[in-house]
């Protein structure tokens, strides 16, 4: 075995740089994602510090990062939480979808993208980053707040929408004629629904096969199964990411909880590599022409997300200040917008740079704005009752 010194050196420098950037971002209660994207731009083609030796590793790591992101998304899913979200916040989810996907679709049409590109852009503007938002709520000590369940419910319903959206978009993205795409999408959606059923009715059986008291065994089994299913899914043109998501859905209960804990650090590492790779794949020279479009799209969908959050919070009878907090908390877009672009980006030249710039702007603006919305003394509420009953 030959030790690849150049690779080790480059990777070491990259990870050290990411850790410094991450610390910096966390200190300011910001998401590190925009900084990871910038780092990717810097080390990519046409950047200031190219890293030729680790290019292959970053590419492979990014693929694993997407798989782990989607696996954990599936693991996070729980039927009772979904049911609570459905009971209270279906109208919020509708408002969310219409207000935030439509601007993306319109922008896609204006920019002359084809059907797939338009659909991808609509998805990228629709989905808030549950990773950024959940972390933000915890960092800003908002878990006790009255508006928080509304925000989290909107996120859960968005993640469920992703379950149906990703297979639909992944199949045409992998090429083929329209009927192949339609058939593939149908199969993929059937697979998602089957996985829901399996996890609901027989999840504990699968859990018994996977479950092992030893953490190393658990990690090997889950990762092995996930990569196998992901590869199979990719073979039938349904995207590895969707396959990984299905595995996550099928694992429930105690197994899911333990797997989440074991996978956490691995997911964080490879997700960082994924963000880096997205930055690497974008040529800084291509970024400049799409900046005006990205800025306009970010401005519009920033406002529409605030409206969505305020609407959802109002449904839970939250007061004015809480509504603002909920609205601004949802602004951040992140990992899933980038996953969508990762799926279709290779076939569209402008989409990659556009969404990268867009996510950069909103992953930065979201945490900043929601922090501002939480400051300032509450206005005295004359004539209002001292306490409002909590939503049932």
């Amino acid at each position, binding site marked *: 075995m030959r030790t690849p010194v150049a690779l080790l050196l480059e990777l070491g420098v990259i990870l050290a740089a990411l850790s410094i950037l991450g610390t910096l971002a966390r200190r300011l209660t910001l998401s590190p994602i925009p900084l990871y994207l910038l780092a990717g731009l810097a080390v990519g083609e046409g950047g200031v510090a190219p890293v030729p030796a680790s290019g292959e590793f970053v590419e492979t790591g990014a693929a694993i990062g997407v798989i782990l992101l989607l696996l954990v998304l599936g693991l996070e899913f729980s039927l009772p939480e979904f049911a609570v979200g459905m009971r209270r916040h279906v109208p919020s989810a509708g408002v969310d979808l219409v207000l935030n996907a439509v601007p993306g679709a319109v922008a896609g049409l204006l920019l002359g993208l084809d059907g797939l590109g338009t659909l991808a852009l609509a998805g990228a503007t629709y989905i808030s980053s*549950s990773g950024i938002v959940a972390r933000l709520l*915890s960092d800003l000590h908002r*878990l*006790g707040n009255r*508006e928080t369940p509304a925000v989290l419910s909107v996120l859960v319903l968005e993640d469920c929408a992703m379950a149906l959206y990703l297979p639909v978009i992944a199949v045409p993205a992998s090429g083929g004629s329209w009927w192949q795409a339609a058939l593939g999408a149908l199969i993929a959606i059937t697979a998602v629904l089957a996985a829901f059923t399996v996890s609901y009715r027989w999840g504990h059986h699968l859990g018994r096969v996977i479950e092992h008291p030893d953490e190393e065994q658990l990690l090997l089994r889950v990762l092995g199964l996930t990569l196998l299913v992901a590869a199979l899914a990719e073979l039938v043109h349904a995207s590895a990411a969707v396959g990984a998501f299905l595995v996550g859905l099928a694992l429930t209960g105690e197994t899911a*909880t333990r797997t989440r804990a074991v996978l956490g650090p691995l997911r964080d590492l490879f997700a960082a590599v994924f963000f880096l790779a997205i930055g690497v794949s974008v040529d800084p020279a291509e970024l400049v022409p799409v900046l005006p479009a990205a800025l306009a799209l970010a401005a519009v969908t920033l406002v529409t997300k605030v409206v969505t959050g305020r609407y959802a919070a109002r449904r839970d009878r939250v007061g004015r200040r809480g509504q603002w907090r909920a609205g601004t908390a949802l602004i951040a877009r992140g990992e899933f917008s980038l996953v969508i672009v990762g799926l279709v980006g290779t076939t569209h030249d402008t989409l990659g740079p556009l969404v990268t710039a867009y996510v950069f702007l909103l992953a930065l603006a979201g945490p900043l704005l929601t922090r501002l919305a939480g400051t300032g003394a*509450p206005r005295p509420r004359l004539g209002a009752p001292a306490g409002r009953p909590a939503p049932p």
Partner: protein
Amino acid sequence: MDVTEVLLPGVGMRYEFTGHKGERVGVVARRTGDFELVLYDAGDPDEGRTVLELDSEEADAVAEILGAPRIAERFADLTKEVPGLGSGQVEVRPGSAYDGQPLGATRARTLTGASIVAVVRGEEVIASPTPQQLLRGGDVLVVIGTHEGIAGVDRIIRG
């Protein structure tokens, strides 16, 4: 007391109740095992002010502190049935004469007639301890007997 449960999807649970002085209290129980205690101000009843953050170990310790006296209270209910009989708690102080000694070495029953029916140690409750049971600093002995008997056990353990 009414405790409202609110599901926080993807994060955990929140329990809310109104204390007897009128303050609204929330306890956020996260999936990770961490806890947060929040208070709601009258100015913005939607906004919680975090007053305490506990990891799972600290939360266990607090639960134990709040929960241990209750075990003795339950014994107290029991002894109400018999006139003249009472129950009490005696703490074995760390570094005291009986820290590390077996229960039998105290000769508490022989000298006072009162019985040590349980040893509360951290989370665990050792019910009906034998004379061989080793005592440790921090243990709380649950004693049943006459009031003089309980006071006697207290004097013995204090040394």
